């Protein structure tokens, strides 16, 4: 046998364009296209204000999608995030109304999410139950707790909270609120964690092949559980951001939001099979969802159901393209 038969030359790639980035670049292109088309069609669309609103309206979703990205890269899924978000926002509202100190309340609300994540991770790992069903049960549990704590919506009237929430930077009309600031920091931190820490790389390794990761001597148990903890924590934080933007807590918020988060992650180019994806892609995915909604509101005559149909169609296109792309690579 000669060397050249078995050891093929590694497939050459054009410099600077790694296939791994293709899906994200695709999403980026879509975002740019949507902005351009929106700007061409509607006055006041391409304004700092509208673009700023895109972030303000979706700060919580960005955080959820970031957490979801971790879980999905490990090859799992977390269906509970919408309900945990609601629970966390209710905890914020209830405790603030009960007169607790804000700096105590916010960590508690976030920790509630962490606890849910820990519970999911532990059950998934120790009892070997599928993530889908565990987090589905978690979703029902969190939703039930929401109604148990507060069947009615609770307004937040708390001076300290108002001040904290009211902070914003303005670049002309482009505003960054506290919530947006936190969401962007979360994205940045997640990016650094995923790409610059051993934990982050282990997340990818598990998604690539869990048995391999085990045999490579990586801390699989800890990493897997931690991924759910991160998702739960992000949901808790998302709830805080949600409470910040609404200054109220309501048990029915975030119904179906987990699916928005999953859709954003998938549109952002993360493979649901795990092992590939970028948190920046998820951010772009959220922006795509937000832009669809914005365009439909700007149009003003399109009925709301077009949002769903368009999101579905976009998902279809992305997923099929991704699939064909990965098939070509295989």
């Amino acid at each position: 046998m000669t060397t050249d038969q078995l050891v093929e030359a590694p497939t050459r790639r054009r410099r600077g364009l790694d296939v791994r980035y293709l899906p994200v670049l695709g999403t980026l292109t879509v975002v740019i296209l949507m902005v351009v088309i929106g700007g061409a069609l509607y006055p006041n669309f391409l304004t700092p204000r509208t673009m700023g609103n895109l972030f303000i309206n979706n700060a919580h979703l960005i955080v959820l999608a970031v957490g979801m990205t971790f879980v999905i890269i490990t090859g799992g899924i977390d269906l509970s995030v919408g309900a945990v978000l609601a629970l966390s926002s209710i905890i914020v509202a209830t405790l603030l109304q009960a007169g607790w100190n804000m700096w105590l309340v916010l960590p508690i609300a976030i920790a509630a999410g962490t606890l849910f994540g820990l519970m999911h991770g532990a059950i998934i790992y120790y009892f070997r139950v599928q993530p889908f069903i565990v987090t589905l049960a978690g979703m029902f549990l969190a939703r039930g707790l929401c109604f148990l704590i507060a069947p009615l919506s609770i307004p937040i009237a708390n001076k300290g909270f108002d001040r904290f929430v009211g902070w914003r930077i303005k670049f002309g009309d482009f505003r960054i609120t506290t919530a947006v600031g936190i969401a962007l920091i979360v994205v940045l931190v997640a990016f650094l964690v995923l790409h610059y820490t051993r934990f982050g790389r282990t997340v990818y390794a598990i998604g690539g092949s869990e048995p391999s990761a085990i045999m490579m001597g990586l801390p699989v148990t800890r990493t897997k559980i931690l991924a759910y903890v991160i998702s739960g924590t992000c949901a808790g934080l998302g709830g805080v951001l949600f409470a910040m933007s609404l200054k109220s807590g309501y048990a029915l918020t975030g119904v179906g939001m987990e699916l928005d988060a999953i859709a954003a992650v998938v549109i952002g180019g993360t493979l649901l099979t795990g092992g590939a994806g970028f948190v920046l892609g998820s951010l772009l995915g959220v922006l795509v969802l937000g832009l669809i909604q914005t365009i439909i509101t700007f149009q003003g005559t399109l009925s709301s159901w077009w949002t769903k149909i368009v999101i579905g169609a976009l998902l279809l296109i992305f997923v099929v393209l991704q699939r064909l792309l990965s098939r070509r690579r295989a």
Partner: protein
Amino acid sequence: MVAEDLARVVSDEPVISMTGISIEFPGVKALEEVDFRLYPGEVHALMGENGAGKSTLIKALTGIYGIDAGTIVVEGRAVSFSSPLQAQAAGISTVYQEVNLCENLSVAENVMLGQEVRRGPSIDWRATRREAQRHLSDMGLDIDANSSLGSHSLAVQQLVAICRAASFDCRILVLDEPTSSLDSGEVEQLFRVMRSLRDQGVAILFVSHFIDQVFEISDRVTVLRNGRLIAEHRTADLDQEHLISEMIGRSLAALGDLRVDARDDDAEPYVRAIGLGRAGSVEPFDLDVYSGEVVGLAGLLGSGRTELARLLAGIDTTTAGTTAVEGKAARLGNPRAALDRKIAYSSEDRKGEGVIGDLTVRENIILGLQASRGWLRKLPKGTVDAVVAKYIEALNIMPPNPNARISNLSGGNQQKVLLARWLAMQPKLLLLDEPTRGIDVGAKAEIQKTIAELARDGMAVVFISAELEEVLRLSNRIAVMRDRRKTGELDNDGNLEVSDIVSFIAQGGKAS
């Protein structure tokens, strides 16, 4: 039997000493009271047939399997690792038999995962890559550390896995069949690295089926058979024949020649492949298979035997050529079409493409029959009972309980169940890909005998095995593969020797 008085190359304490290790899987005693010692500065070969328990012994050492009995002492401390992570921390680096890396990550990451160069908590990617590249060039691997692992061939991936294991600052290096997909140049390269590590005092555990390699690299040899320790030798004191007889438990000749009479040359071949091929996997080839004969496929690992068989069975789609069944052109676009023409394929990947784990023996046997009949009309219970009883009896399937879950059977018995599945469909051409892999000697002989009988009864058989002796014993004709090309055919007239086939393979079909 264990030679206690072996002169040590380096007369230290053993770095690993495993005593009385037993492991039982449902239905299989994979290891029974095995002792094993590994000294620093030696290359120690672990030998044994398929399924002898080599990989299991390694996995017991590194904590992937828990042991049922026995003790493991590493560097003087009794240990029981519960994960490879702990084994690695104790200085044991392992390359497992199946390539165990992450194809979605880059080569550099696969080498460096878990030992990245860091500044604070943050990975310093430039330094990490530099480090990875250094390890790669130490192995003589000239590939871009930044490239994605999935873009490389299996052989390169295997080398990367070894590179990863060697890159850890380890005192014990375990290599389970690292050479199975390497060519001779790469093997040489690997051996160079192994020798240099050994000279640094690293203890190396090495598993290979290639006897020549074992004699070339190892200092000592431990032989396992059917989960039991058979012997421990200094390689220098050992001769090949003795080693082989220890491995297989009897001399080769004992089984004798099982060939059936040669075919009648006037007859129409049952299947005739003309220029059949698949871009990127098998070059176009011609092959005739007659009823009542066994055609062996010989070739080195990865020479494309499996791919060839899969084309005939309609599992992979062809990109060139035509097939004729009983003289009539036939399109074998999928397994169903092939099965409808009575062509069945038994995969080499028993677990992945053979057994349906959660189903019973009975269901596994009748699956093929039922699939041919369609989903609406269930096979009558009487027929099923008769068929199942017949094959459990004929193939001596143990336990003879049709309602046992197949995943609880031993590998050999699973293989027999699969054979029963194909036989129940009464194929006219049966393609058997490594039907005896991972099967004990007794079962192996039984299966071989069954194959010979089937041919005698008029079935056409294509037989693939890594063991050339076996191929030789059974086949009327041997098609030789090399580099995914069929390079020629040898008629087995009874005078053919293994060495003839080997040299034929080596010459790449120039001589015939």
